[in-house]
């Protein structure tokens, strides 16, 4: 079925019979799925901590919307569009409405695990990708517009791109182990385009938007790292050498990025910031994502180190570019995704991961990687723009200036993150006993 699945088993020289569950593989894929699911609440905390006091719940609820609407849409249709047999551009409807996972009254088993589980595993990727996009848009987008847009986006931007890269589609020669292109570049470009279409927050450039709770940012980063072991390790579709390699690289690269970032921060500000460390961890995780099972551990350390630079410097200047990518999705996920995608082509190692990269003489792979990056950028940008304009037909995308000022938690959700009980007067309703 999925290219990724097949590729892995072929690489390992396994000829696993259809129909036999491998309990070890299944155990690992179960827990990996749970780990990736956890990444979305983790992201809600990473983003929510960076948000200002009045937009905390809205920021978090955007991620949770992807868990709700996005998860349902993915199961009913998105998975099929990504992974059912189709053409080079999009998958078919073979798995639509969750059909196709029972055969002769038994659950289909594929490559050692029940095939149905893949809907959930891949679903968690679709969800976190949509949730990532929200980071560029917080502070001004109407919640209803986000729910509609993000659901459509999973179906018509994420699913096709997943198909191109992993579903035997038109980018199937690119190396993208766990989603550097499909997930991170895709989300970041969508965020960037969204930020441009929505326009900046009204007070952007005049007022300082500061994080409201940096411990939450660190909590988010810690849980994201934890979850990412499932993201990258689970993408091996086995509990094998490939998983162990991907896992270890996911341990090494962000450690290196954080170390380099601490040094860059010292050099630039004389101080290592906590927000910087959290950001660096995410940047390193993004950068190693496409490479995780393809490069050796020293390659992972290099990728981690190199990925720090573009993100560090871009995030520093971004606000002064007049670009209101509120939580720096492009600076973190976009640039690190691109850096990682290209460096995967450079550091890929035949002995470790099955494919030689530039350093082992196969520079063509770098070109293939660049091509995939460009295709992804173009598709994501166009698709996102189309869907945003489409959404605008039904609901306005932004709140009013006054609503922005009052804060989206109150205006859109009727709540405050940390409710004040002083002066809160209980509303008696008819028939109510008070």
């Amino acid at each position, binding site marked *: 079925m999925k290219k990724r699945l097949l590729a892995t088993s072929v690489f390992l020289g396994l000829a696993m019979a259809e129909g036999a569950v491998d309990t070890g593989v299944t155990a690992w894929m179960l827990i990996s799925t749970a780990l990736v699911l956890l990444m979305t609440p983790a992201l809600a905390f990473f983003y929510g901590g960076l948000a200002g006091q009045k937009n905390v719940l809205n920021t978090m609820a955007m991620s949770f919307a992807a868990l709700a609407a996005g998860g349902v849409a993915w199961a009913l249709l998105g998975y099929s569009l990504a992974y059912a047999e189709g053409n080079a551009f999009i998958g078919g409807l073979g798995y639509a409405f969750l059909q196709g996972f029972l055969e002769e009254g038994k659950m289909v088993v594929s490559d050692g695990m029940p095939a149905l589980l893949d809907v959930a595993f891949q679903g968690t990727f679709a969800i976190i990708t949509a949730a990532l996009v929200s980071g560029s848009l917080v502070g001004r987008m109407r919640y209803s517009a986000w729910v509609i847009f993000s659901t459509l986006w999973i179906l018509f931007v994420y699913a096709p791109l997943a198909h191109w890269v992993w579903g035997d589609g038109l980018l199937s020669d690119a190396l993208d182990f766990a989603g550097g292109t499909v997930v991170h570049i895709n989300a970041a470009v969508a965020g960037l385009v969204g930020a441009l279409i929505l326009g900046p927050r009204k*007070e952007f450039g005049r007022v300082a938007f500061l994080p409201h709770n940096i411990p939450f940012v660190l909590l988010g980063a810690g849980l994201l790292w934890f979850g990412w072991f499932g993201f990258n390790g689970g993408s091996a579709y086995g509990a094998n050498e490939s998983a162990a390699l991907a896992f270890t690289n996911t341990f090494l690269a962000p450690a290196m990025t954080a170390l380099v970032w601490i040094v860059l921060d010292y050099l630039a500000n004389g101080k290592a910031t906590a927000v910087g460390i959290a950001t660096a961890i995410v940047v390193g995780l993004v950068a190693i994502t496409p490479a995780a099972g393809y490069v050796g551990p020293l390659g992972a350390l290099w990728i981690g180190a190199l990925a720090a630079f573009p993100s560090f410097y871009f995030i520093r200047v971004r606000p002064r570019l007049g670009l209101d990518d509120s939580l720096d999705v492009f600076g973190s996920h976009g640039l690190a995704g691109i850096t990682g995608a290209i460096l995967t082509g450079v550091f890929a190692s035949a002995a470790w991961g099955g494919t030689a990269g530039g350093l082992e003489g196969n520079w063509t792979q770098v070109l293939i990687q660049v091509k995939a990056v460009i295709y992804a950028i173009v598709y994501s940008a166009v698709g996102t723009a189309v869907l945003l304009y489409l959404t605008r037909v039904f609901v306005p995308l932004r709140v009013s200036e006054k609503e922005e000022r009052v804060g989206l938690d*109150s205006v859109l959700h009727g709540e405050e993150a940390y*409710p004040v009980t*002083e*002066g*809160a*007067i*209980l*509303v008696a309703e008819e028939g109510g006993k008070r």
Partner: protein
Amino acid sequence: MKLIVAIVRPEKLNDVLEALFKAEVRGLTISKVMGHGGGTERVETYRGTTVKMGLYEKVKLEIGVSDPFVEPTIQAILSAARTGEVGDGKIFVLPVEKVIRIRTGEEDEAAVTPVKPGEG
């Protein structure tokens, strides 16, 4: 000596601080408060509990000034804090009998005259 107490919108605080700075008013103390006035109420719902929130976040400034500074201070606040919508706040001018700078024991005028930098 007067104590000028001003209630302003939090989002206007930076403008007010800038205006006071231009008016050469240096010393002041601010606090977060909640204000009730002529404005409408917000309704919030937490599960089955619906509440009316009649209070809005405001910032209070307390500024001890010598008499010649009273008018400029008021003008600075008025110009920077006004949006024209209900909720802009109030200024109160209170009489003060004595001001003392704790660091030096200086009193009255001397106590509110700015000094050379250091940790404040």
